[in-house]
């Protein structure tokens, strides 16, 4: 006789698999903010701008005018002497980081199984994002071509 047969019967049925995060009384009530809408809009709008910024960046850095071999300290110093390239790189940094972070946020929301996992993954993501954005901004604005 099989174990599973003796384990369960009419009065003692096997537990059924509940759907994850079933809606209960403890489920947070609606937030009534437009955050998700702004997030959704930001992804589309920043995406359009990033196509221009990133493709332009790649073209200028890697293809035109001698290709990748031209890139060096002097090249970067020359570019960042112009406010135009400073603004270009700054906008690209911020948009790309926020775009990527928001995308990862939705991926975590979709795939993380437990509330704790979800929370800590997002904390890690936000920390890394803030760190990278701030460090990059700092470098763009305080870059000193006469260093060393």
């Amino acid at each position, binding site marked *: 006789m099989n174990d*599973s*047969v003796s*384990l*369960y*019967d*009419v009065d003692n*049925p*096997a*537990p*059924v*698999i*509940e*759907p*994850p*995060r*079933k*809606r209960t009384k403890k*489920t947070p009530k*609606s*937030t*009534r903010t*437009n*955050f*998700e*809408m702004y*997030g*959704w*809009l930001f992804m589309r709008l920043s995406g359009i701008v990033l196509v221009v910024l990133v493709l332009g960046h790649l073209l200028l850095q890697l293809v035109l005018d001698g290709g990748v071999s031209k890139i060096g300290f002097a090249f970067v110093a020359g570019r960042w002497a112009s406010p135009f390239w400073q603004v270009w790189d700054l906008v690209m940094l911020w948009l790309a980081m926020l775009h990527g972070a928001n995308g990862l946020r*939705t991926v975590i*929301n*979709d*795939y993380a*199984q437990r509330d704790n996992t979800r929370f800590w993954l997002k904390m890690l993501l936000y920390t890394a994002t803030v760190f990278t954005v701030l460090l990059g901004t700092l470098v763009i604005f305080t870059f000193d071509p006469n260093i060393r």
Partner: protein
Amino acid sequence: MSTSTLEKHSKALDAAEDGASHSITITLRVRRFNPEVSEDASWQDFQLEMDPKERVLDALHKVKWEQDGTLTFRRSCAHGICGSDAMRINGKNRLACKTLLKDINPEKPITVEAIKGLTVLKDLVVDMEPFFQAYRDVMPFLITTGNQPTRERLQTAEDRERFDDTTKCILCAACTSSCPVFWNDGQYFGPAAIVNAHRFIFDSRDEGGEQRLEILNDKDGVWRCRTTFNCTDACPRGIEVTKAIQEVKRALITRRF
């Protein structure tokens, strides 16, 4: 006679259409689960003599009535209107009563399992409560202000046409249970609830659109849609579900700005 769908026809079907004898042998592979016997679900094969022009529901009936009376599934009208018998047939959400055996290659075993993302209670029967909870949450009824008119609430043909597609929903849950976002956590409202909100949001007679949009603007509302089009593919009524969801998104954006 059958030139238009010649590609899809199997040899068995051609023979069936030519001669008087119609039956072929099919294998129905059903995902069985009975919590009173075992905590594990398992596949069970049934060999059946069926006419290829019969439906998967007929095959299930034949099993239940002639081979194994313990097979459990829902069906009410059996003609594609009540929406009771949505199930996953050959890996795709369909109504068993609208799926002909000849259309799903009866030469191979036909797999039948419960729709995903909802708790399986027994065999093909799932707990639909989370699905209907989301449906109730969007307030799928006419909301108006002021005195009731003494006559019908009239509306132009164009106004009626605006939401015609989403009136076709039969609440079978084929769309919601095909949505990967719903699979992950049952918190997402799901395509069916949004379709039924759409039906009232775009109804010129209704005045509760703003409330429904506010509900669907939440973090588990329309913004969780990833436009994978699983819902549109699954809908047995041919509703353009993803389009309806996108229209609700657009309405939210245009009304907020």
